Structure formats: C-alpha cells, structure tokens
C-alpha cells in the first residue's frame, strides 16, 4: 500500500531531477541534419565546413598538440578502445576523419557520445584537418580487437564479393574517395557501424553500400567484420 503511494512520488522526483539537468544537456545536444532517410539524399554532398578543412594546408605537428582533447578516449596512440567501441584512428585517411567529424558536428551522423567533443567551439575546421593529418601518420597498431574467428572463410568470401571494390583488397580504403580504411579497425566497432548502416541508423552511410548490406544477416556482418579486423595494414611510404 505504502509502496504504491510512493511510486508516483518517486517518479515525480525523478522527472524533476531530469528537468534540472536539461540546461546542460541542451547545450550539448546534437542537432539533426537530413540523412539517408531523406528523399534525395546524396552521400558526401558538398559541405562548407568540409571544404574548409580539406582546403587547409594541414600541419601534423600542430595536429599533435590539438589531438590532446581527443586522446582522453581515443588514446595517445590513436588506438581507441575495442570494448567501448571507440574506433581506432591511427593511420586512417585524413579525408575520412575530416568527413566523419563534420558529419557528427552537423548532425548527419548521430553520435551523442562524441558530439560534445566535436563542436566548432572546441576545434575549428582547420584544426580538424591538422589532427587528421597527425592521425594519418601514426602507425596502425595490430593489437586491435578481433572477432571469435569462427567464420573467417564466410567473411572473406563476402568481403571480396561486396566490399573490396571500394574498401580495397587489403582493406586500405581510398583517401580520395573518402572510403575508410577498415584494416586494423576494432571488430566491435566495425560490427556496430556495419549493422547501423544496414538498418539506416548510421544516417551518413552510402546508399550503394546500404543496398548491398540489406541482404546481410547479423551473422554475415559479424563474419565480414571479423575478417576486416584481421586485414593487415600496408606499410606506408
């Protein structure tokens, strides 16, 4: 009896507590821009912020200093954290890092966890370009998270049938086309992002890729993610 009376009161208190927090939450709330769910969506359509960063003569040394604010999650060597799905960034194409950052801060790629750290009140377009240049030069650690290894032949077959034409024979991606390097990426991150792309939760994915992924089961995605996580990053320069 007493518990029944208490419950609504507790709920009221909880709601009040949430309301009290709202001012901070609002300030760091990610905006929502049109994405793949929108009619006429075009992948990687021209963006002012993106163009500014791409036009900037990037300075990797300066980028190292500006990377400071990122490394609290993505770590000093850019390796991220497999168990938290923080992507591995070391060696990733600068163009890819820039595009994804711009998509997050514009709200085309939903990422409320990352958003408060991506705004132009923290990093300018030019600084993002510097950071991306720095990360691109870092060696990709081979200690990234891998899958269980049970379905690698299935993963391999899918990868070369559907993925390699864009993401490269060795998972190297394509800097000019903004296609991410997938080699050396954490399995957990690849799996999450691929599933989200298929289900259109990753709203900045390419339509072409989503069309292919629609045919994939969860098990297919797990297998191909596991295979990609094991691809060896080619020696640079």
């Amino acid at each position, binding site marked *: 009896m007493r518990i029944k009376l208490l419950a609504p009161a507790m709920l009221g208190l909880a709601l009040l507590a949430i309301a009290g927090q709202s001012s*901070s*939450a609002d300030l760091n709330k990610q905006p929502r821009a049109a994405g793949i769910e929108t009619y006429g969506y075009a992948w990687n359509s021209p963006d002012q912020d993106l163009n500014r960063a791409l036009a900037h003569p990037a300075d990797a040394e300066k980028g190292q200093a500006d990377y*400071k604010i990122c490394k*609290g*999650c993505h770590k000093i060597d850019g390796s991220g954290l497999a168990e938290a799905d923080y992507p591995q960034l070391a060696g990733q194409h600068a163009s890819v890092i820039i595009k994804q950052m711009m998509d997050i801060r514009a709200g085309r790629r939903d990422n409320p966890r990352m958003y408060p750290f991506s705004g132009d009140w*923290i990093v300018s377009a030019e600084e993002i370009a510097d950071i991306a240049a720095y990360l691109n030069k870092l060696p990709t650690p081979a200690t990234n998270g891998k899958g269980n290894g049970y379905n690698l032949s299935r993963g391999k077959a899918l990868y070369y049938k559907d993925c390699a034409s864009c993401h490269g024979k060795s998972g190297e991606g394509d800097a000019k086309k903004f296609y991410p390097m997938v080699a050396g990426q954490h399995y957990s991150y690849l799996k999450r992002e691929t599933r989200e792309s298929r289900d259109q939760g990753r709203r900045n994915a390419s339509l072409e890729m989503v069309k292919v992924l629609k045919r994939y089961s969860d098990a297919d995605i797990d297998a191909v993610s596991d295979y990609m996580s094991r691809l060896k990053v080619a020696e640079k320069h």
Partner: protein
Amino acid sequence: MKSFTPKPLIAFACLALSAVIAAPVQADAEAIANEMCAGCHGADGNSMVPGFPKLAGQQKVYLLRELKDYRSGKRVSEIMAPLVSTLSDQDVADLADFYAKQKPAPGVAGNPALLSVGKNLYLKGNSNTDVPSCDSCHEEDGSGSGKFPRVAGQHVDYALDQFRLYATGKRTNGSRVMQAVANRMSEEETRAVAEYMASMP
C-alpha cells in the same frame, strides 16, 4: 548545491576591500593582488579558504580568460564580478601573469579511501559512461596547459562546486567539454576525482 552559496562574510570583506580601491591606478599586479585578491585567494595565491580556488601556478592563459569572462559576465560570480569590473585589460593581464608565477603549495589529501577511485578515473576515464580521462587535457601531474587549468592541489570544495556548476549547465564559459564530462560523472566519481586532484603535489 549549498556549498557554492557565497560565503557572506568573506564576500563582504572582498567587497569592502574593493570599495577602498575603487579608482584603479597604475598599480602593479602585486599591489592589486594584495589589496583586492589576497583576502580570499591568499597573499601568494595559495588560498586557505576551501571554497575559493588556489591561483598560484595556475595557467596564465586560463587565468586571463577567466578574469575576462568574469568581467564580461560570461562566467557568473556575485563575488568576482564587482571586483574585476574595476580592472583594466592591462591589470587582468598583469594579474594572470603574477599568479601564474607564484609557487603552488603542495596538495593535501582529504579522504584517502577515495584516492584510488579518483586516480583511476583521472588517468583512465570511464568508458562505460564515455567519460574521457582527465590527464589528456589537464596533464598527468595536474599542471594543466594553456587554456586547460592546473588542477593539482586545488581545494576539494572549489572543485566540487565547479563540477556541479558544469553538470547543471550553470558554468558555461570556456568550452562545453566540461559540461558533458561533469554531467556523465557519478557523485562518487566527482568526489573521488576532486580528492585525487587535491592530493596532487
């Protein structure tokens, strides 16, 4: 929340002091510091009052930004606002320089039980709640750099006040990073990190 209520007596003392020197002259930073700031922040910037921050050895860039933000109202404080309103650009620059050059007193550990929790969060963050590690911006030794303030040896009470102001969106100057971070930290983590920072030499 009660801990950041202005301490009326000290506030009154500071205001009284400010009234005495209402017309700012070309005094050097040390003179201004002695007349205006020492009552709360200590003669050498090592405040003895838990609610008022230690300024000795603080980052110059950070001090300058905070002083200017107090003056413009971007950072809100009933105590600081009337004081800094009398200062010129040169004065605030000189004061920032003065406090940055003072020797910080070594930290004091209040609650050893929380230190290991605090140290762990400070150096590793909490990936379950997406709290980044503190050392990436504030440095492993808590000395800060540039716009990222020194946190080593800071009073627990002051640090807790700031965490709460950030978490509730009431401190909005600077970047919004600390609002997100403070909002994601549990009460225990907040306490523990404040204790750990206070203990840093």
